[in-house]
């Protein structure tokens, strides 16, 4: 199937406050999809619906359907724990587990998801994940150091390695670079491109240049609505909607 996610009429509310309005969107396999828009447009809320991170938020509710490979992720058959193993997430602030070493940070998902892997397998997967996250060379001699002793950019790549270690199919990234300096940002962007060969990636960003650089397709959100979604080349040169054009040319947001 070409689409990993098919989102149908997704609306959501925090209490009385409607945050998303009838979103329809397809996310294609092994592509990078950016979700951009001004602050408060619902883009983070949207992406967190895809791995059911809102399940525990009091007052949150939603309507519509989110299909992952054709299965509604809210159907009884789907356990959110398994869903999240297939759909990993990287957060806005680098959030390595405090009091865990670099190694443990990457290994912990493998250790705690009940598969009882032999130690050697875990080491191997940790190394592979760190290599994929382009962090291995920098940390291979410091695996026992606390994860939080790394620099901000390294911490974020550690979080990416941590997410990759459990071998998800999809990687959701919620403004992964907004807390990083330009050099680290460039590294992460490069990494996203490399990873898109094997993974389906959805990135939230409020940075248009970033969206243009990394994505195959871009979705533009405004006030909880999906204004338009198109190929990255098209949306930045010839947007269909006036509001997209206004946003791109810096009229608001």
């Amino acid at each position, binding site marked *: 199937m070409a689409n990993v996610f098919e989102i149908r009429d997704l609306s959501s509310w925090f209490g009385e406050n409607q945050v998303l309005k009838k979103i329809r969107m397809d996310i294609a396999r092994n592509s990078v999809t950016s979700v951009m828009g001004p602050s408060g447009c619902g883009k983070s809320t949207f992406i967190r619906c895809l791995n059911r991170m809102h399940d525990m938020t009091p007052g949150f509710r939603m309507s519509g359907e989110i299909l992952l490979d054709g299965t509604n992720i809210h159907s009884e058959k789907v356990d959110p724990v398994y869903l999240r193993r297939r759909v*990993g997430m990287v957060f806005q602030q680098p959030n390595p587990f*405090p009091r865990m070493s670099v190694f443990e940070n990457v290994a912990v998902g493998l250790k705690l998801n009940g598969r009882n892997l032999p130690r050697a397998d875990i080491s191997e997967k940790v190394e592979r994940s760190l290599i994929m996250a382009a962090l291995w060379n920098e940390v291979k001699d410091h695996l026992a150091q606390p994860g939080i002793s790394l620099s901000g950019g390294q911490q974020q790549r550690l979080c990416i390695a941590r*997410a990759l270690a459990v071998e998800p199919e999809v990687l959701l990234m919620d403004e992964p670079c907004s807390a990083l300096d330009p050099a680290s940002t460039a590294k992460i962007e490069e990494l996203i491109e490399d990873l898109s060969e094997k993974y389906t990636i959805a990135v939230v960003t409020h940075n248009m240049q970033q969206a243009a650089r990394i994505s195959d397709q871009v979705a533009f959100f405004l006030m909880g609505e999906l204004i338009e979604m198109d190929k990255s080349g098209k949306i930045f040169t010839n947007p269909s909607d006036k509001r997209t054009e206004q946003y791109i040319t810096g009229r608001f947001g």
Partner: protein
Amino acid sequence: MTGAITFRRKATDRAMKWVFYLCAFLVVLPLFLIFFDLVIKGAKELRWSLLVDLPHPVGEPGGGIANGILGTVVITLLTMTWSVPVAVMSGIYLAEYGRGKFASAVRFAVDTLTGVPSIIMGIFAYVLLVLPMKRFSAWAGAAALSMIFIPVVVRTTEDMLRTVPTTVREAALALGIARWKATLRITVRTAWPGILTGILLAMSRIIGETAPLLFTALGNQFWQTKLDQPMAAVPLQVFTYAISPYEDWHDKAWAGALVLITMVLLINIAARVLTREKR
């Protein structure tokens, strides 16, 4: 004019700083006074036999509080074997799951229990255990102490877990880790130094408690390791010696108090050392 105002502001600033310093000093002063007083008065009876011998009868020199030290250790460990898991898990409930009326009720009850005078815990355990069992026992003492220990640890555990950022919980769940595992192996682990400190501080609190043991463990002049029998404890012995009319027992009370405060001090130091962040 401006100069004078500046001068006054600076003077006030300096004066206030000294007020803060002085208050902080007054807070720590009693600890030093108590400790030095105990060292001076307790030194007289402080010898090796105090730690290894049974109490001697009045007037007979020597003798110790070894059975009390053993009793304190036994009763404390007994208390903690069930109180630590119950308290920590209740704290986890309050911090991680506790929303709604039941949680508020638990929180209120725990706060109230923290404020209940410890002698009432003793009376309660007396009614609950000593009367039906028809004897004073270490069990009853431990039960009374649990009621002091648990509420303190529940609240410190909850508070410590609340200092763990939401982002840590989210990161754990996003890895596809079941919630109970994420809670125990990641969130609790993150807050563990604080939780452990709370446990050790509550432990040093119950080691010194006397009132809850008066009608429960009762005290004992002999070795006793059976948990369904009256058991000695250092604070009980200090109490017995202190209210006696005999001069040499008074000296032993001072020495016992010194032993007690040293135990408490050691636990507090252990709390510091164990929970120091390893870098």
